[in-house]
Protein backbone atom coordinates (compact mmCIF):
# COMPACT_ATOMS: atom_id res chain seq x y z
CA UNK A 1 0.00 0.00 0.00
CA UNK A 2 2.76 2.44 0.96
CA UNK A 3 4.49 1.72 -2.34
CA UNK A 4 1.30 2.41 -4.30
CA UNK A 5 0.81 5.71 -2.49
CA UNK A 6 4.42 6.77 -3.04
CA UNK A 7 4.24 5.89 -6.72
CA UNK A 8 0.98 7.81 -7.08
CA UNK A 9 2.46 10.83 -5.28
CA UNK A 10 5.36 10.75 -7.73
CA UNK A 11 3.03 10.59 -10.72
CA UNK A 12 0.92 13.39 -9.29
CA UNK A 13 4.00 15.54 -8.78
CA UNK A 14 5.07 15.01 -12.40
CA UNK A 15 1.56 15.80 -13.63
CA UNK A 16 1.44 18.89 -11.42
CA UNK A 17 4.64 20.33 -12.83
CA UNK A 18 3.72 19.65 -16.45
CA UNK A 19 0.38 21.45 -16.02
CA UNK A 20 1.92 24.31 -14.05
CA UNK A 21 4.72 24.92 -16.53
CA UNK A 22 2.51 24.77 -19.64
CA UNK A 23 -0.17 27.05 -18.22
CA UNK A 24 2.47 29.22 -16.58
CA UNK A 25 3.96 29.93 -20.01
CA UNK A 26 0.49 30.72 -21.41
CA UNK A 27 -0.17 33.19 -18.60
CA UNK A 28 3.29 34.75 -18.45
CA UNK A 29 3.69 35.24 -22.19
CA UNK A 30 1.32 38.23 -22.59
CA UNK A 31 2.95 39.92 -19.59
CA UNK A 32 6.43 39.39 -21.00
CA UNK A 33 5.22 40.62 -24.38
CA UNK A 34 3.86 43.77 -22.77
CA UNK A 35 7.22 44.47 -21.16
CA UNK A 36 9.02 43.90 -24.45
CA UNK A 37 6.51 45.93 -26.48
CA UNK A 38 6.51 48.89 -24.11
CA UNK A 39 10.31 49.14 -24.09
CA UNK A 40 10.63 49.25 -27.88
CA UNK A 41 10.36 53.02 -27.95
CA UNK A 42 12.85 54.51 -25.49
CA UNK A 43 11.49 57.05 -23.06
CA UNK A 44 8.02 55.53 -22.69
CA UNK A 45 8.50 54.50 -19.09
CA UNK A 46 10.31 57.64 -18.04
CA UNK A 47 7.46 59.66 -19.51
CA UNK A 48 4.99 57.61 -17.49
CA UNK A 49 6.92 58.27 -14.30
CA UNK A 50 7.01 62.01 -14.88
CA UNK A 51 3.53 63.20 -14.02
CA UNK A 52 3.78 66.80 -15.23
CA UNK A 53 5.29 65.80 -18.57
CA UNK A 54 2.69 63.03 -18.95
CA UNK A 55 -0.04 65.55 -18.22
CA UNK A 56 1.33 67.78 -21.00
CA UNK A 57 1.87 65.04 -23.59
CA UNK A 58 -1.29 63.00 -22.96
CA UNK A 59 -3.79 65.24 -21.13
CA UNK A 60 -6.64 62.78 -21.74
CA UNK A 61 -4.69 59.99 -20.04
CA UNK A 62 -3.86 62.11 -17.00
CA UNK A 63 -7.51 63.10 -16.76
CA UNK A 64 -8.57 59.45 -16.99
CA UNK A 65 -6.16 58.39 -14.25
CA UNK A 66 -7.42 61.07 -11.87
CA UNK A 67 -11.05 60.29 -12.74
CA UNK A 68 -10.56 56.58 -12.03
CA UNK A 69 -8.83 57.16 -8.70
CA UNK A 70 -11.59 59.51 -7.59
CA UNK A 71 -14.29 57.11 -8.79
CA UNK A 72 -12.67 54.21 -6.97
CA UNK A 73 -12.46 56.08 -3.67
CA UNK A 74 -15.99 57.45 -3.89
CA UNK A 75 -17.52 54.12 -4.95
CA UNK A 76 -15.86 52.35 -2.02
CA UNK A 77 -17.20 55.03 0.32
CA UNK A 78 -20.74 54.96 -1.09
CA UNK A 79 -20.78 51.16 -1.11
CA UNK A 80 -19.77 51.04 2.57
CA UNK A 81 -22.22 53.71 3.67
CA UNK A 82 -25.05 51.99 1.82
CA UNK A 83 -24.29 48.36 2.46
CA UNK A 84 -22.71 47.98 5.90
CA UNK A 85 -25.45 49.63 8.01
CA UNK A 86 -28.15 47.91 5.94
CA UNK A 87 -26.54 44.47 6.30
CA UNK A 88 -26.12 44.90 10.07
CA UNK A 89 -29.59 46.36 10.51
CA UNK A 90 -31.28 43.59 8.56
CA UNK A 91 -29.46 40.94 10.58
CA UNK A 92 -30.41 42.52 13.88
CA UNK A 93 -33.91 43.79 13.34
CA UNK A 94 -35.41 42.49 10.11
CA UNK A 95 -34.19 38.93 9.55
CA UNK A 96 -37.14 38.28 7.27
CA UNK A 97 -35.81 40.84 4.79
CA UNK A 98 -32.43 39.14 4.55
CA UNK A 99 -33.35 36.97 1.57
CA UNK A 100 -34.65 40.00 -0.32
CA UNK A 101 -31.54 42.09 0.37
CA UNK A 102 -29.34 39.19 -0.66
CA UNK A 103 -31.32 38.67 -3.85
CA UNK A 104 -31.07 42.36 -4.78
CA UNK A 105 -27.36 42.46 -4.04
CA UNK A 106 -26.62 39.42 -6.19
CA UNK A 107 -28.94 40.51 -9.00
CA UNK A 108 -26.24 42.48 -10.89
CA UNK A 109 -24.47 39.16 -11.53
CA UNK A 110 -27.35 38.16 -13.78
CA UNK A 111 -27.53 41.50 -15.56
CA UNK A 112 -24.51 42.06 -17.81
CA UNK A 113 -22.95 45.54 -17.55
CA UNK A 114 -23.77 46.21 -21.20
CA UNK A 115 -27.45 45.57 -20.45
CA UNK A 116 -27.30 47.81 -17.40
CA UNK A 117 -25.94 50.60 -19.60
CA UNK A 118 -28.94 50.34 -21.90
CA UNK A 119 -31.30 50.78 -18.96
CA UNK A 120 -29.15 53.37 -17.22
CA UNK A 121 -29.15 55.79 -20.16
CA UNK A 122 -32.54 57.36 -19.27
CA UNK A 123 -31.73 57.32 -15.53
CA UNK A 124 -28.52 59.20 -16.29
CA UNK A 125 -30.45 61.74 -18.31
CA UNK A 126 -31.99 62.71 -14.95
CA UNK A 127 -28.68 62.51 -13.12
CA UNK A 128 -27.24 64.92 -15.70
CA UNK A 129 -30.18 67.20 -15.20
CA UNK A 130 -29.78 67.38 -11.42
CA UNK A 131 -26.05 67.12 -10.77
CA UNK A 132 -24.43 67.58 -14.19
CA UNK A 133 -22.47 65.29 -16.49
CA UNK A 134 -19.30 64.99 -14.43
CA UNK A 135 -17.51 61.65 -14.78
CA UNK A 136 -17.80 61.22 -11.00
CA UNK A 137 -21.53 60.52 -11.42
CA UNK A 138 -20.49 57.07 -12.71
CA UNK A 139 -20.03 56.23 -9.04
CA UNK A 140 -23.79 55.64 -8.81
CA UNK A 141 -23.68 52.88 -11.41
CA UNK A 142 -20.40 51.43 -10.11
CA UNK A 143 -21.86 50.99 -6.65
CA UNK A 144 -24.49 48.70 -8.21
CA UNK A 145 -21.83 46.87 -10.19
CA UNK A 146 -19.77 46.02 -7.09
CA UNK A 147 -22.76 45.09 -4.91
CA UNK A 148 -22.51 41.29 -5.38
CA UNK A 149 -18.81 41.14 -4.49
CA UNK A 150 -19.02 43.64 -1.64
CA UNK A 151 -22.14 42.00 -0.23
CA UNK A 152 -20.53 38.57 -0.16
CA UNK A 153 -17.46 39.91 1.62
CA UNK A 154 -19.47 41.79 4.24
CA UNK A 155 -22.00 39.00 4.71
CA UNK A 156 -19.19 36.50 5.27
CA UNK A 157 -17.69 38.84 7.86
CA UNK A 158 -21.01 39.18 9.67
CA UNK A 159 -21.63 35.44 9.61
CA UNK A 160 -18.29 34.84 11.33
CA UNK A 161 -19.33 36.78 14.45
CA UNK A 162 -22.38 36.60 16.66
CA UNK A 163 -23.90 39.96 15.79
CA UNK A 164 -27.02 39.50 17.89
CA UNK A 165 -25.22 38.71 21.14
CA UNK A 166 -22.77 41.54 20.63
CA UNK A 167 -25.59 43.97 19.95
CA UNK A 168 -27.68 42.76 22.90
CA UNK A 169 -24.71 43.08 25.24
CA UNK A 170 -24.02 46.59 24.05
CA UNK A 171 -27.69 47.54 24.22
CA UNK A 172 -27.91 46.09 27.71
CA UNK A 173 -25.09 48.37 28.77
CA UNK A 174 -27.05 51.33 27.43
CA UNK A 175 -25.53 51.82 23.96
CA UNK A 176 -27.60 53.41 21.20
CA UNK A 177 -27.92 51.79 17.76
CA UNK A 178 -25.31 54.09 16.27
CA UNK A 179 -22.82 53.10 18.98
CA UNK A 180 -23.65 49.44 18.42
CA UNK A 181 -22.85 49.71 14.72
CA UNK A 182 -19.90 52.05 14.85
CA UNK A 183 -18.10 50.89 17.99
CA UNK A 184 -19.17 47.27 18.45
CA UNK A 185 -20.02 45.55 15.16
CA UNK A 186 -17.80 47.48 12.75
CA UNK A 187 -14.49 46.82 14.56
CA UNK A 188 -15.36 43.13 14.52
CA UNK A 189 -15.84 42.96 10.75
CA UNK A 190 -12.92 45.24 9.90
CA UNK A 191 -11.17 42.75 7.62
CA UNK A 192 -14.41 41.98 5.76
CA UNK A 193 -14.99 45.69 5.22
CA UNK A 194 -11.43 46.05 4.01
CA UNK A 195 -11.91 43.15 1.56
CA UNK A 196 -15.07 44.74 0.21
CA UNK A 197 -13.29 48.07 -0.24
CA UNK A 198 -10.26 46.54 -1.99
CA UNK A 199 -12.46 44.53 -4.35
CA UNK A 200 -14.43 47.66 -5.13
CA UNK A 201 -11.30 49.65 -5.94
CA UNK A 202 -9.93 46.87 -8.15
CA UNK A 203 -13.22 46.49 -10.04
CA UNK A 204 -13.67 50.23 -10.55
CA UNK A 205 -10.10 50.68 -11.81
CA UNK A 206 -10.85 48.03 -14.45
CA UNK A 207 -14.27 49.27 -15.50
CA UNK A 208 -14.75 50.24 -19.13
CA UNK A 209 -18.23 49.29 -20.36
CA UNK A 210 -20.36 51.83 -18.53
CA UNK A 211 -17.93 54.74 -18.74
CA UNK A 212 -17.35 54.23 -22.44
CA UNK A 213 -21.00 53.91 -23.42
CA UNK A 214 -22.22 56.77 -21.23
CA UNK A 215 -19.46 58.95 -22.73
CA UNK A 216 -17.62 59.61 -19.48
CA UNK A 217 -13.92 59.25 -18.91
CA UNK A 218 -11.89 56.95 -16.70
CA UNK A 219 -8.59 55.12 -16.86
CA UNK A 220 -9.76 52.33 -19.18
CA UNK A 221 -11.51 54.71 -21.55
CA UNK A 222 -8.32 56.78 -21.67
CA UNK A 223 -6.20 53.69 -22.39
CA UNK A 224 -8.51 52.64 -25.20
CA UNK A 225 -8.38 56.16 -26.66
CA UNK A 226 -4.59 56.18 -26.31
CA UNK A 227 -4.38 52.87 -28.16
CA UNK A 228 -5.51 54.66 -31.31
CA UNK A 229 -2.63 57.16 -31.28
CA UNK A 230 0.27 55.54 -29.42
CA UNK A 231 0.37 51.76 -29.20
CA UNK A 232 3.56 51.64 -27.14
CA UNK A 233 2.31 54.09 -24.56
CA UNK A 234 -1.07 52.35 -24.27
CA UNK A 235 0.63 49.02 -23.58
CA UNK A 236 2.89 50.64 -20.97
CA UNK A 237 -0.12 52.16 -19.20
CA UNK A 238 -2.02 48.86 -19.44
CA UNK A 239 0.86 47.07 -17.77
CA UNK A 240 1.03 49.67 -15.01
CA UNK A 241 -2.72 49.51 -14.40
CA UNK A 242 -2.49 45.75 -14.30
CA UNK A 243 0.36 45.74 -11.79
CA UNK A 244 -1.60 48.17 -9.64
CA UNK A 245 -4.63 45.85 -9.65
CA UNK A 246 -2.29 42.92 -8.92
CA UNK A 247 -0.89 44.60 -5.83
CA UNK A 248 -4.37 45.56 -4.64
CA UNK A 249 -5.83 42.09 -5.06
CA UNK A 250 -2.79 40.34 -3.59
CA UNK A 251 -3.13 42.58 -0.55
CA UNK A 252 -6.76 41.54 -0.50
CA UNK A 253 -5.92 37.84 -0.53
CA UNK A 254 -3.44 38.44 2.30
CA UNK A 255 -6.15 40.16 4.34
CA UNK A 256 -8.43 37.22 3.56
CA UNK A 257 -5.92 34.58 4.63
CA UNK A 258 -5.02 36.27 7.93
CA UNK A 259 -8.70 36.32 8.74
CA UNK A 260 -9.00 32.63 8.05
CA UNK A 261 -5.95 31.85 10.17
CA UNK A 262 -7.43 33.70 13.13
CA UNK A 263 -10.64 31.76 12.86
Amino acid at each position, binding site marked *: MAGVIARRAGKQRAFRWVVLILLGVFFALPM*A*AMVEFSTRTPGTWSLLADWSRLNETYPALAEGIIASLEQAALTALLMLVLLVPTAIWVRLRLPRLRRLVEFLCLLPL*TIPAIVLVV*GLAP*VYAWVNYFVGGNSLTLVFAYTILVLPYAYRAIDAGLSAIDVNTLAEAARGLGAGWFTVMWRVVLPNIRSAVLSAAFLTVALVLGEFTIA*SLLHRTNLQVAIEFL*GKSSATMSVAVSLTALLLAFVL*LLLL*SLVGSTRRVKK
Partner: protein
Amino acid sequence: MAEIAEAAPQRVAARPRLRGAASLLGTVPFFAYVTIFLIIPTLVVAIGAFTGDGGHGFTLDNVRALADEYIIAAFGRSVLLSALSALFGAVFGGLLAYAVSTAKPGGLLRRVVTALSGVLAQFGGVTLAFAFLATIGLSGFVTVWLQDHTGFYIFENGVWLFELPGLVLIYTYFQIPLMVIVFLPALDGIRPQWREATENLGGTTWQYWTRVAGPLLAPAFLGSALLLFANAFSAYATAAALVSQGSPIIPLQIRGALTSEVVLGQANLGKAMALGMVVVVAIVMTLYSLLQKRTSKWLG
Protein backbone atom coordinates in the same frame (compact mmCIF):
# COMPACT_ATOMS: atom_id res chain seq x y z
CA MET B 1 -53.91 54.36 39.51
CA ALA B 2 -56.46 52.30 37.62
CA GLU B 3 -55.97 54.51 34.58
CA ILE B 4 -52.29 53.88 34.46
CA ALA B 5 -52.78 50.16 34.84
CA GLU B 6 -55.16 50.19 31.91
CA ALA B 7 -52.98 52.31 29.69
CA ALA B 8 -49.78 50.41 30.31
CA PRO B 9 -50.58 47.14 28.44
CA GLN B 10 -51.75 49.13 25.47
CA ARG B 11 -48.49 51.01 25.30
CA VAL B 12 -46.55 47.78 25.49
CA ALA B 13 -48.64 46.29 22.74
CA ALA B 14 -48.27 49.32 20.53
CA ARG B 15 -44.51 49.54 20.80
CA PRO B 16 -43.43 46.44 18.84
CA ARG B 17 -45.54 47.45 15.88
CA LEU B 18 -44.16 50.94 15.95
CA ARG B 19 -40.70 49.51 16.28
CA GLY B 20 -41.27 47.31 13.26
CA ALA B 21 -42.20 50.30 11.17
CA ALA B 22 -39.27 52.32 12.51
CA SER B 23 -36.95 49.40 11.76
CA LEU B 24 -38.06 49.39 8.15
CA LEU B 25 -37.06 53.03 7.91
CA GLY B 26 -33.46 51.95 8.42
CA THR B 27 -33.48 50.09 5.11
CA VAL B 28 -35.04 52.91 3.08
CA PRO B 29 -31.74 54.34 1.73
CA PHE B 30 -30.65 50.95 0.45
CA PHE B 31 -33.95 50.07 -1.18
CA ALA B 32 -34.36 53.53 -2.68
CA TYR B 33 -30.88 53.40 -4.15
CA VAL B 34 -31.27 49.91 -5.58
CA THR B 35 -34.64 50.89 -7.05
CA ILE B 36 -33.24 53.90 -8.88
CA PHE B 37 -30.02 52.41 -10.19
CA LEU B 38 -30.89 48.72 -10.59
CA ILE B 39 -34.62 48.06 -10.72
CA ILE B 40 -35.56 51.02 -12.90
CA PRO B 41 -32.81 50.33 -15.48
CA THR B 42 -33.90 46.69 -15.63
CA LEU B 43 -37.51 47.77 -16.14
CA VAL B 44 -36.44 50.28 -18.80
CA VAL B 45 -34.86 47.41 -20.73
CA ALA B 46 -37.76 45.03 -20.20
CA ILE B 47 -40.45 47.56 -21.08
CA GLY B 48 -38.47 49.20 -23.86
CA ALA B 49 -38.10 45.85 -25.59
CA PHE B 50 -41.87 45.82 -26.05
CA THR B 51 -42.37 49.50 -26.84
CA GLY B 52 -42.82 51.05 -30.28
CA ASP B 53 -40.39 53.56 -31.71
CA GLY B 54 -42.41 56.61 -30.87
CA GLY B 55 -42.15 55.55 -27.24
CA HIS B 56 -45.84 54.64 -27.18
CA GLY B 57 -47.79 51.46 -27.38
CA PHE B 58 -47.09 47.79 -26.95
CA THR B 59 -45.42 46.02 -29.82
CA LEU B 60 -43.68 42.76 -30.55
CA ASP B 61 -41.78 44.29 -33.47
CA ASN B 62 -38.49 44.63 -31.55
CA VAL B 63 -38.58 41.09 -30.33
CA ARG B 64 -39.56 39.90 -33.79
CA ALA B 65 -36.64 41.89 -35.22
CA LEU B 66 -34.35 39.68 -33.17
CA ALA B 67 -35.04 37.04 -35.78
CA ASP B 68 -33.17 39.17 -38.34
CA GLU B 69 -30.39 37.26 -39.94
CA TYR B 70 -27.54 39.43 -38.68
CA ILE B 71 -28.83 39.43 -35.09
CA ILE B 72 -29.34 35.66 -35.07
CA ALA B 73 -25.82 35.32 -36.43
CA ALA B 74 -24.44 37.60 -33.71
CA PHE B 75 -26.29 35.67 -31.00
CA GLY B 76 -24.95 32.45 -32.49
CA ARG B 77 -21.38 33.74 -32.47
CA SER B 78 -21.80 34.98 -28.89
CA VAL B 79 -23.02 31.56 -27.81
CA LEU B 80 -20.21 29.84 -29.72
CA LEU B 81 -17.56 32.16 -28.25
CA SER B 82 -18.91 31.65 -24.73
CA ALA B 83 -19.25 27.89 -25.15
CA LEU B 84 -15.77 27.40 -26.60
CA SER B 85 -14.01 29.63 -24.09
CA ALA B 86 -16.00 27.99 -21.28
CA LEU B 87 -15.00 24.54 -22.59
CA PHE B 88 -11.29 25.39 -22.81
CA GLY B 89 -11.44 27.25 -19.52
CA ALA B 90 -13.21 24.38 -17.77
CA VAL B 91 -10.84 21.71 -19.10
CA PHE B 92 -7.56 23.54 -18.52
CA GLY B 93 -8.77 25.23 -15.36
CA GLY B 94 -10.01 21.88 -14.09
CA LEU B 95 -6.61 20.30 -14.76
CA LEU B 96 -4.85 23.17 -13.02
CA ALA B 97 -7.22 22.97 -10.07
CA TYR B 98 -6.60 19.23 -9.80
CA ALA B 99 -2.83 19.76 -10.00
CA VAL B 100 -3.09 22.28 -7.17
CA SER B 101 -5.39 20.07 -5.10
CA THR B 102 -2.82 17.28 -5.05
CA ALA B 103 -0.22 19.64 -3.58
CA LYS B 104 0.20 20.27 0.13
CA PRO B 105 -3.05 21.82 1.47
CA GLY B 106 -1.60 24.90 3.16
CA GLY B 107 1.47 25.05 0.95
CA LEU B 108 3.05 27.92 -0.91
CA LEU B 109 2.16 26.59 -4.37
CA ARG B 110 -1.50 26.46 -3.55
CA ARG B 111 -1.57 29.92 -2.00
CA VAL B 112 0.29 31.46 -4.92
CA VAL B 113 -1.92 29.80 -7.55
CA THR B 114 -5.19 30.75 -5.83
CA ALA B 115 -4.03 34.34 -5.25
CA LEU B 116 -2.90 34.69 -8.87
CA SER B 117 -6.14 33.12 -10.10
CA GLY B 118 -8.12 35.67 -8.11
CA VAL B 119 -6.22 38.45 -9.82
CA LEU B 120 -6.20 37.00 -13.33
CA ALA B 121 -9.91 36.14 -13.28
CA GLN B 122 -10.55 39.89 -12.93
CA PHE B 123 -8.10 40.68 -15.71
CA GLY B 124 -10.51 41.33 -18.49
CA GLY B 125 -11.24 44.45 -20.37
CA VAL B 126 -9.14 46.86 -22.32
CA THR B 127 -5.81 45.98 -20.72
CA LEU B 128 -6.19 42.32 -21.67
CA ALA B 129 -6.95 43.27 -25.27
CA PHE B 130 -3.77 45.37 -25.39
CA ALA B 131 -1.77 42.61 -23.73
CA PHE B 132 -2.72 40.27 -26.57
CA LEU B 133 -2.06 42.94 -29.19
CA ALA B 134 1.45 43.18 -27.76
CA THR B 135 1.75 39.38 -27.85
CA ILE B 136 0.19 38.22 -31.10
CA GLY B 137 -0.77 41.49 -32.75
CA LEU B 138 0.58 42.24 -36.21
CA SER B 139 3.86 43.45 -34.68
CA GLY B 140 3.46 41.53 -31.44
CA PHE B 141 6.28 39.84 -29.58
CA VAL B 142 5.36 36.25 -30.47
CA THR B 143 4.31 37.09 -34.05
CA VAL B 144 7.64 38.77 -34.80
CA TRP B 145 9.73 36.18 -32.96
CA LEU B 146 8.13 33.27 -34.78
CA GLN B 147 8.57 34.96 -38.13
CA ASP B 148 12.21 35.81 -37.48
CA HIS B 149 13.22 32.46 -36.06
CA THR B 150 11.04 29.90 -37.80
CA GLY B 151 9.72 31.80 -40.78
CA PHE B 152 6.20 30.96 -39.68
CA TYR B 153 3.67 33.77 -39.99
CA ILE B 154 0.68 33.13 -37.74
CA PHE B 155 -1.69 35.25 -39.81
CA GLU B 156 -1.00 33.54 -43.14
CA ASN B 157 -4.67 32.63 -43.50
CA GLY B 158 -5.98 36.04 -42.45
CA VAL B 159 -5.78 38.07 -39.26
CA TRP B 160 -7.83 35.80 -37.00
CA LEU B 161 -6.92 37.80 -33.89
CA PHE B 162 -9.78 40.23 -34.49
CA GLU B 163 -12.25 37.48 -35.23
CA LEU B 164 -13.81 34.64 -33.30
CA PRO B 165 -10.66 32.49 -32.90
CA GLY B 166 -8.78 35.45 -31.41
CA LEU B 167 -11.62 36.24 -29.03
CA VAL B 168 -11.83 32.60 -27.90
CA LEU B 169 -8.09 32.60 -27.16
CA ILE B 170 -8.24 35.86 -25.21
CA TYR B 171 -11.40 34.93 -23.27
CA THR B 172 -9.80 31.63 -22.29
CA TYR B 173 -7.12 33.69 -20.57
CA PHE B 174 -9.55 34.89 -17.93
CA GLN B 175 -11.73 31.76 -17.93
CA ILE B 176 -9.01 29.36 -16.72
CA PRO B 177 -8.31 31.24 -13.46
CA LEU B 178 -12.05 31.65 -12.83
CA MET B 179 -12.45 27.89 -13.20
CA VAL B 180 -9.68 27.32 -10.65
CA ILE B 181 -11.49 29.56 -8.14
CA VAL B 182 -14.92 27.99 -8.54
CA PHE B 183 -13.87 24.36 -9.03
CA LEU B 184 -11.18 24.01 -6.37
CA PRO B 185 -13.64 23.80 -3.44
CA ALA B 186 -15.35 20.82 -5.12
CA LEU B 187 -12.03 19.04 -5.53
CA ASP B 188 -11.26 19.69 -1.89
CA GLY B 189 -14.53 17.94 -1.03
CA ILE B 190 -13.19 14.66 -2.43
CA ARG B 191 -12.16 12.48 0.49
CA PRO B 192 -8.94 10.42 0.19
CA GLN B 193 -10.84 7.64 1.99
CA TRP B 194 -13.02 7.15 -1.10
CA ARG B 195 -9.96 6.37 -3.14
CA GLU B 196 -8.67 4.01 -0.48
CA ALA B 197 -12.06 2.31 -0.34
CA THR B 198 -11.99 1.83 -4.12
CA GLU B 199 -8.53 0.33 -3.93
CA ASN B 200 -9.42 -1.95 -1.04
CA LEU B 201 -12.25 -3.31 -3.14
CA GLY B 202 -9.81 -3.95 -5.96
CA GLY B 203 -10.65 -0.95 -8.14
CA THR B 204 -8.16 0.55 -10.55
CA THR B 205 -7.38 4.23 -11.03
CA TRP B 206 -9.52 4.23 -14.16
CA GLN B 207 -12.45 2.72 -12.26
CA TYR B 208 -11.97 5.24 -9.45
CA TRP B 209 -12.24 8.16 -11.87
CA THR B 210 -15.11 6.82 -13.98
CA ARG B 211 -17.20 5.26 -11.19
CA VAL B 212 -16.47 7.31 -8.07
CA ALA B 213 -14.75 10.68 -8.46
CA GLY B 214 -16.06 11.42 -11.96
CA PRO B 215 -19.79 11.12 -11.18
CA LEU B 216 -19.29 12.98 -7.91
CA LEU B 217 -17.45 15.85 -9.57
CA ALA B 218 -19.62 15.98 -12.70
CA PRO B 219 -22.32 18.34 -11.33
CA ALA B 220 -19.68 20.69 -9.90
CA PHE B 221 -17.70 20.63 -13.15
CA LEU B 222 -20.79 21.26 -15.26
CA GLY B 223 -21.94 24.02 -12.92
CA SER B 224 -18.56 25.73 -13.06
CA ALA B 225 -18.57 25.48 -16.85
CA LEU B 226 -22.00 27.15 -16.91
CA LEU B 227 -20.70 29.98 -14.75
CA LEU B 228 -17.82 30.41 -17.19
CA PHE B 229 -20.31 30.50 -20.05
CA ALA B 230 -22.29 33.28 -18.38
CA ASN B 231 -19.08 35.14 -17.63
CA ALA B 232 -17.99 35.09 -21.27
CA PHE B 233 -21.47 35.86 -22.55
CA SER B 234 -21.64 39.01 -20.39
CA ALA B 235 -18.14 40.23 -21.22
CA TYR B 236 -17.90 43.35 -23.32
CA ALA B 237 -14.77 45.44 -22.79
CA THR B 238 -12.16 43.08 -24.24
CA ALA B 239 -14.08 42.57 -27.45
CA ALA B 240 -14.92 46.27 -27.68
CA ALA B 241 -11.29 47.31 -27.39
CA LEU B 242 -10.14 44.68 -29.87
CA VAL B 243 -12.81 44.84 -32.53
CA SER B 244 -13.41 48.34 -33.80
CA GLN B 245 -15.02 47.42 -37.11
CA GLY B 246 -18.08 45.24 -37.45
CA SER B 247 -20.05 43.74 -34.60
CA PRO B 248 -19.53 39.99 -34.55
CA ILE B 249 -21.08 39.38 -31.11
CA ILE B 250 -24.23 40.58 -29.36
CA PRO B 251 -22.63 43.04 -26.87
CA LEU B 252 -21.03 44.81 -29.82
CA GLN B 253 -24.37 44.84 -31.66
CA ILE B 254 -25.85 46.57 -28.63
CA ARG B 255 -23.03 49.10 -28.75
CA GLY B 256 -23.93 49.72 -32.37
CA ALA B 257 -27.59 50.23 -31.47
CA LEU B 258 -26.66 52.59 -28.63
CA THR B 259 -24.21 54.74 -30.55
CA SER B 260 -26.17 55.02 -33.78
CA GLU B 261 -29.22 56.61 -32.29
CA VAL B 262 -29.62 58.63 -35.46
CA VAL B 263 -30.87 55.49 -37.13
CA LEU B 264 -34.52 55.39 -36.19
CA GLY B 265 -35.85 52.39 -34.36
CA GLN B 266 -32.46 51.21 -33.18
CA ALA B 267 -32.85 52.25 -29.54
CA ASN B 268 -35.61 49.81 -28.68
CA LEU B 269 -34.08 47.09 -30.80
CA GLY B 270 -31.03 47.51 -28.54
CA LYS B 271 -33.29 46.97 -25.55
CA ALA B 272 -34.74 43.83 -27.13
CA MET B 273 -31.21 42.46 -27.66
CA ALA B 274 -30.33 43.39 -24.07
CA LEU B 275 -33.42 41.55 -22.85
CA GLY B 276 -32.35 38.56 -24.93
CA MET B 277 -28.98 38.59 -23.17
CA VAL B 278 -30.63 38.75 -19.75
CA VAL B 279 -32.83 35.77 -20.63
CA VAL B 280 -29.82 33.69 -21.70
CA VAL B 281 -27.77 34.61 -18.62
CA ALA B 282 -30.74 34.06 -16.31
CA ILE B 283 -31.36 30.55 -17.69
CA VAL B 284 -27.68 29.67 -17.36
CA MET B 285 -27.45 31.03 -13.81
CA THR B 286 -30.60 29.14 -12.77
CA LEU B 287 -29.11 25.89 -14.06
CA TYR B 288 -25.91 26.79 -12.24
CA SER B 289 -27.64 27.22 -8.90
CA LEU B 290 -29.55 23.95 -9.37
CA LEU B 291 -26.28 22.12 -10.00
CA GLN B 292 -24.74 23.89 -7.01
CA LYS B 293 -27.44 22.46 -4.78
CA ARG B 294 -26.78 18.99 -6.13
CA THR B 295 -23.05 19.41 -5.65
CA SER B 296 -23.33 20.48 -2.03
CA LYS B 297 -25.11 17.21 -1.20
CA TRP B 298 -21.88 15.23 -1.51
CA LEU B 299 -19.03 17.64 -1.70
CA GLY B 300 -20.30 20.31 0.69
